[in-house]
C-alpha cells in the first residue's frame, strides 16, 4: 500500500466480466482471478453465468459463457451491477455482454477471433473493432491467439489445439498485470491440477506469465490499477460457494448429531454439486446414493431417516415436483429429513442454469392435503452453511422434513467465508427411545414442548411398530379414519411446525424502527437489497430493510414489525410469492410487490430506483 509509483491508480473496487465460448475455460479464468484477489485481501463476490448447453457451437451467441467478479476494499454483497471491464474472447462474447458494460468501461478483446465467420455468427454486419460502434469505451485489441502461440512455441508434445486451449491463461495473465494480482495462487493451482502432465502445466504457466509480461512490455495499457485491501474482520478465510457451504453444513450437522449422513439424490442442475462435494467426504461416514430418479431419491431418504441417519436430498424445482408425494409421506410418517431445493428458472424445464425464487409457494403448498413443512432460506453463499445446520435442528426437533430453499445464484456464487471454529457449533441432541418395562410403546405420543414424536429406530428391541401413509390415530399411530383422529393429527402437525417459532431468533430491522418504507426480502436478494437500502439511506431517503431467513413459520415478531411501516416493498425473483404470503398471513394491504423473473439476480440499481420512485411518489 506504500507503492506510489506513477503508473498505479489506487481504486476501491472493480467489476470484471470474463466472457468467451463455453469451451474457452472462462469459468476457470474467473475463478483463478477471484482466488488471487481473495488471497490478496480484497472482498469478493462472483457470479458465473453459463449456458445450459455443455458445448454450444463455437463462436455463437448461444455458447457464450461468462464469469463476473466484484473486487472491493469494502464489504460487498453482490457481484456488482454493471461490469467496468469486459474481457471478450470472441465477437459473440462482445455482442452478448456489451450492453451490460458501464459507459467508458474497458474492453479487452482477442482480435484473432474477429474473423468474418465469427463476426457473422455473432450477427455483426461490420467488425465492431473497425467501425465506430465501440466509441465511448476504452478498447484494448490484443491478438491473444497469435501471442499465445508464439509464447508456447517449442514445448514438445503439444498439439496446436492444446496450445490454443491455453489462451485463457494468457488473458488471465494480462488482467493480472493490469490489476496487479499476485501470480502465486494460480501458479500453485496449475502445478496441482496438471502436475501429472508436465507439458500442459508448462504451457499454462508459460501462457500466464507471457500474458503478464505482455502487459508489462507493451505500451497498450497506460494505467495499472491497484484495489486496496478490504477491511474484513480478522479471522481465517476461504472462498466458498453456496453449494460448497451447504455440503459442509450438512456434514457438520451430522457430526454434531453423532449420525452418519445419508444423501440420496438424482443429478439436477444447479443442485448436483452438493452431491459431488458430499461424495468426496465419505471419511465422515457420508453415504451418498445416486438414485434412479427424483422419486427414488426421496424414498431412499425416508428409508434412511427411519433407519436413524441424518437423511438429506438436494434437487431443484422440477425435482421437487416429482418428490412431492414422497415428501408428504415423510411428513405423515413424521421422520426428520432435509430437502434442499436449489431453485432455478421455471416453469417446466425452464432455465436450468439461471436463477429464480419461484418455488416458494411450491415448497409451501405444492402437496396434496394439509401438509405444512418448515421452510428456511439462506441469504448468502456462506449462510448456506449455517442454515443447513439449522435445517437439521428443525428436522429433529419437530420430527419433520424441512425444506432448505436455496437458489442457483447462491449455489454458484462465491464469497469470502470466515471459517468457523467447529467447537463453537452446538451439538444437535438426539435421543432414540428404548423400551420401558410395563409400558406400551406409542410411536405418536408427542413431546409436550415440541410436539415431536419419538424417533424409535429399527434394531431397538421391544419398540417394533408400523408407520404408514394412511390417516392414523394419535398416540398409537394405528390406521384410523375417525373424524376426530384425523382432525387431531392435522392440528398437531400444524402446531409442531408453528412451535419452531420458539427457537427462531427475533426478526431484526436495518434502519429506522418505523417509518414510511420497509424493504422485505428473502434468499439471495439480500445482497442487492441491503446495498440499495444503504445507498438510499446515504441519499437521505427514509427506508428500512428486513431480511427473512425463516419463511415457515415466520419469526414471532414479524407481524408487529411489519405494522410499523407505511409501505412494504418486496423485491422478489418471482411474481410476488412472499408478498402473497405476507398479505394472506397478516391481512395487510400495504405490500408493494416488485417482481423480476428474467433468470438474473436483482441489481442494486434496480432496487434503489424502485425505492427512490416510490418515495418520490409518496411525497
Amino acid at each position, binding site marked *: 500500500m506504500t507503492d506510489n509509483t506513477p503508473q498505479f491508480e489506487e481504486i476501491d473496487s472493480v467489476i470484471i466480466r470474463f466472457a468467451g465460448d463455453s469451451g474457452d475455460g472462462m469459468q476457470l479464468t474467473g475463478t483463478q482471478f477471484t482466488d488471487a484477489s481473495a488471497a490478496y485481501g480484497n472482498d469478493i463476490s462472483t457470479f458465473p453465468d453459463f449456458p445450459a448447453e455443455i458445448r454450444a457451437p463455437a463462436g455463437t451467441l448461444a455458447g457464450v459463457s461468462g464469469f463476473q467478479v466484484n473486487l472491493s476494499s469494502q464489504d460487498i454483497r453482490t457481484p456488482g451491477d454493471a461490469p467496468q471491464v469486459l474481457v471478450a474472447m470472441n465477437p459473440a462474447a462482445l455482442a452478448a455482454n456489451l450492453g451490460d458494460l458501464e459507459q467508458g468501461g474497458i474492453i479487452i478483446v482477442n482480435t484473432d477471433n474477429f474473423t468474418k465467420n465469427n463476426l457473422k455468427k455473432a450477427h455483426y454486419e461490420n467488425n465492431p473493432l473497425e467501425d465506430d460502434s465501440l466509441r465511448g469505451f476504452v478498447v484494448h485489441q490484443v491478438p491473444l491467439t497469435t501471442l499465445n502461440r508464439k509464447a508456447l512455441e517449442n514445448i514438445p508434445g503439444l498439439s496446436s489445439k492444446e496450445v490454443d486451449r491455453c489462451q485463457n491463461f494468457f488473458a488471465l495473465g494480462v488482467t493480472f498485470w493490469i490489476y496487479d494480482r499476485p501470480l502465486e495462487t494460480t501458479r500453485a493451482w496449475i502445478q496441482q491440477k496438471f502436475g501429472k502432465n508436465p507439458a500442459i502445466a508448462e504451457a499454462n504457466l508459460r501462457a500466464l506469465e507471457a500474458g503478464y509480461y505482455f502487459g508489462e512490455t507493451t505500451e497498450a495499457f497506460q494505467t495499472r490499477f491497484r484495489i486496496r485491501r478490504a477491511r474484513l474482520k480478522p479471522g481465517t478465510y476461504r472462498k466458498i460457494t453456496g453449494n460448497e457451504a451447504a455440503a459442509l453444513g450438512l456434514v457438520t450437522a451430522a457430526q454434531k448429531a453423532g449420525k452418519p449422513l445419508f444423501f440420496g439424490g438424482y443429478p439436477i442442475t444447479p443442485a448436483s454439486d452438493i452431491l459431488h462435494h458430499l461424495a468426496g467426504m465419505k471419511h465422515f461416514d457420508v453415504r451418498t446414493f445416486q438414485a434412479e430418479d427424483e*422419486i427414488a431419491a426421496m424414498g431412499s431418504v425416508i428409508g434412511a431417516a427411519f433407519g436413524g441417519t441424518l437423511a438429506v436430498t438436494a434437487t431443484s424445482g422440477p425435482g421437487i415436483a416429482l418428490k412431492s408425494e414422497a415428501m408428504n409421506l415423510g411428513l405423515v410418517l413424521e421422520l426428520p429429513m432435509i430437502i434442499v431445493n436449489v431453485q432455478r428458472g421455471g416453469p417446466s424445464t425452464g432455465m436450468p442454469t439461471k436463477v429464480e425464487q419461484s418455488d416458494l409457494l411450491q415448497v409451501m403448498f405444492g402437496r396434496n392435503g394439509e401438509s405444512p413443512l418448515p421452510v428456511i432460506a439462506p441469504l448468502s453463499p456462506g449462510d448456506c452453511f449455517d442454515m443447513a445446520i439449522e435445517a437439521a435442528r428443525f428436522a429433529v426437533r419437530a420430527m419433520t422434513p424441512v425444506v432448505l430453499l436455496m437458489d442457483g445464484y447462491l449455489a454458484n456464487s462465491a464469497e469470502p467465508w470466515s471459517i468457523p471454529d467447529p467447537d463453537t457449533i452446538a451439538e444437535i441432541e438426539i435421543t432414540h427411545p428404548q423400551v420401558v418395562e410395563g409400558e406400551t410403546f406409542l410411536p405418536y405420543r408427542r413431546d409436550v414442548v415440541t410436539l415431536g414424536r419419538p424417533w424409535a429406530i429399527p434394531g431397538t428391541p421391544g419398540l417394533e411398530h408400523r408407520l*404408514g401413509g394412511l390417516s392414523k390415530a394419535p398416540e398409537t399411530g394405528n390406521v384410523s379414519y375417525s373424524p376426530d383422529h384425523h382432525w387431531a393429527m392435522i392440528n398437531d402437525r400444524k402446531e409442531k411446525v408453528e412451535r419452531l417459532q420458539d427457537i427462531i431468533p427475533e426478526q431484526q430491522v436495518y434502519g429506522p424502527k418505523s417509518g414510511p418504507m420497509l424493504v422485505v426480502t428473502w434468499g439471495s436478494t439480500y445482497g442487492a437489497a441491503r446495498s440499495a437500502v444503504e445507498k438510499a439511506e446515504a441519499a437521505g431517503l427514509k427506508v428500512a430493510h428486513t431480511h427473512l431467513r425463516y419463511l415457515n413459520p415466520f419469526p414471532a415478531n414479524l407481524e408487529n414489525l411489519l405494522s410499523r411501516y407505511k409501505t412494504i416493498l418486496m423485491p422478489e425473483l418471482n411474481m410476488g410469492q412472499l408478498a402473497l404470503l405476507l398479505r394472506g398471513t397478516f391481512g395487510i394491504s400495504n405490500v408493494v410487490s416488485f417482481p423480476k423473473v428474467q433468470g438474473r439476480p436483482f441489481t442494486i440499481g434496480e432496487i434503489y430506483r424502485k425505492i427512490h420512485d416510490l418515495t418520490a411518489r409518496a411525497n
Partner: protein
Amino acid sequence: MTDIPIQNIPTYTRKDFASDQTVRWCPGCGDYAIIAGVQKTLPGLGIPKENIVFISGIGCSSRFPYYMNTYGIHSIHGRAPTLATGLKIARPELSVWVVTGDGDGLSIGGNHLLHACRRNIDLNILLFNNRIYGLTKGQYSPTSLPGTKTKSSPMGSIEPAFNPVAVALGAEATFIARTMDTLTRHLEATLKDAAEHKGTSFVEIFQNCVIFNNGTWEHVANKSTQDDNALFLEHGQPMIFGKDKDKGLRLNGLRLEVVQLGDGVTEADLLVHDETNDHLAYLLTQMDYPDYPVPFGVIYRVPKPPYEQQLMAQVQEARVKKPSADLRSLYQADYTWTIEAEAEPEVTIVDTAETMAISGLDEAYIDEMSEQLGELPPEMSSKIDPMADITQAPIAVLHQGRTPITVMPETSVAQAINMMHEAGIGALLVVDPSNHLDGIFTESDVLMKIAMKVTDLDNRTVSEFMTPNPDTLPAHISIAHALHLMSIHHYRHIPIVNENGTVSGIISFRDVVRYIETYFDRE
C-alpha cells in the same frame, strides 16, 4: 447399532410375528396363506425380531406390514424398493423385506424394481402376482393376460403381459424364484432361501384374488392338474414332472422341449437344473402353460457382492485413508488466508486431494485438458478416439472460418461451373436475395443432368438443374449425425442453415475425412 450375539436371540414362534391389528383381506384371499408362510419362516432365520423390517407400497398386498409385529412402513404406490434401499444403506445389518404386487411393483413402481435388482442391494422382494388390480376393484394389471375382460377392458385387454421372473432376470437380479400361496411348504422353503441370499432376492408368489380374478392360477393350483402343469425345480436334479413322474424337459437346439420318458428317452437325456446358469434361467422363465409346465422354485441364484456392502467398503476405505476426519481441516480444505488487524494476508495453499470439486463446467474443461495427454506418453497423445469425438463435435467445427459460396437461381450454368472449378469445390448453394436456401447445385448435377446433354450453358440457369429444397442441418448437430445422413442418402454435401432458414455454411464428406485425419497426423 444392535449387534446381538446369536445365542441371545429368543426362540420365536409364528405368533411373535403377528401384530395386534385385525387382518382385513377378503375372506379366502391368498394373502392369508402368504402371511402365514412368512410368519412361520421368520422364527427359523436366526434374526432378532427387532432387526426385521417390512416395507410395502400400495395395494392389497401392501397392507402386509400392518399385520406383522416387526418394524415396518406402509409407504406410497410403487416406491417401497426406494425406502428399502435407503434403509439398507443406513443400516446394513437389518433384514429388509419388500412386499409388493403386480400393479405396485411392475406398473407404477417398475423403475424402482428394476434398479433395486440391478444394484443387487440386499433386499427380499416378494411380489404377489394375482394378475389384477384388487384394491381399486378389478382393472387389468401389467401381468393380466391379453383378452382379460375387466371394468377397464370390457372388450378384453389388448396389452401383452409382463412375466415377472423374466423382468427380474433382465434386470440382473441375483436370486429369482417362484412359488404360490397354496404351496405351504414350498413357500416357506423359498422364503428361507430368499432371506439367506446376500443381494436382491426376487420371489414371485402366485396369489389368488377370490373376488376379481378367482382361479387365475387354477391350472397349477388345482391338485388334480398341478402335477402335469407344474415343474418343481431342484438344483442338480433332472427336470421331471407329471403325475406319474414320466415327463421331462430336454434341450432341443436352443429350445426346451417336453419329452415323455420311456421309448428310448431316459432320465439321463433330461436337463439337470443348474440355478447358476443364466441361459438356462432365461429358458425357464419363458416356460408357460399350456405349452410347458410352469416352473416353481429357485430359477436363478448366483453370488455377487451386494450394493450396500460395497458402499460401506468405500466408506471404510475413505476412513482408513483419512483417519483424522475433523471438521476443522475439512473447512480449510481450500486455500485460506488470514486477516489480522491491519496486516498482510497470509496465504496457505493446501493439497488438492482435499479441495472440493469445482463447478461442473470447469471440471469438463479440465478433464478435456487432461485428456489431451492423460496418462499416455506425450508422443501418443494424439491418439484420442476420433469416433467418440465426432459424436460430440458439432459440424460447425468443420467449416470454421470458411464462408459457403452461393449463387442466385438465375446464375448461368456456365458461370456456376466456372465458380466451382476456380474455388475447387464440389457444390454451390443456391440462395434467394435474403440468403434463404433454394437448392444445391453439385458436381453430380453437372455430371448426371448437364454433361453431354446440355450445350447452351450460358443461357441455362442453375435453378433448372439444382436439387431444390435439399436436406439441411443446423450447426450444432454432431459430425456423426451428418455422416450418418451422408451415408444413408449418398449426400456428398449438406448445407448448414440458421434458425431463420438463412444459409450459414456447407459441409462436405471431404471435410469430415479431413477432420478425422487430424487425429492421425502425428503417427
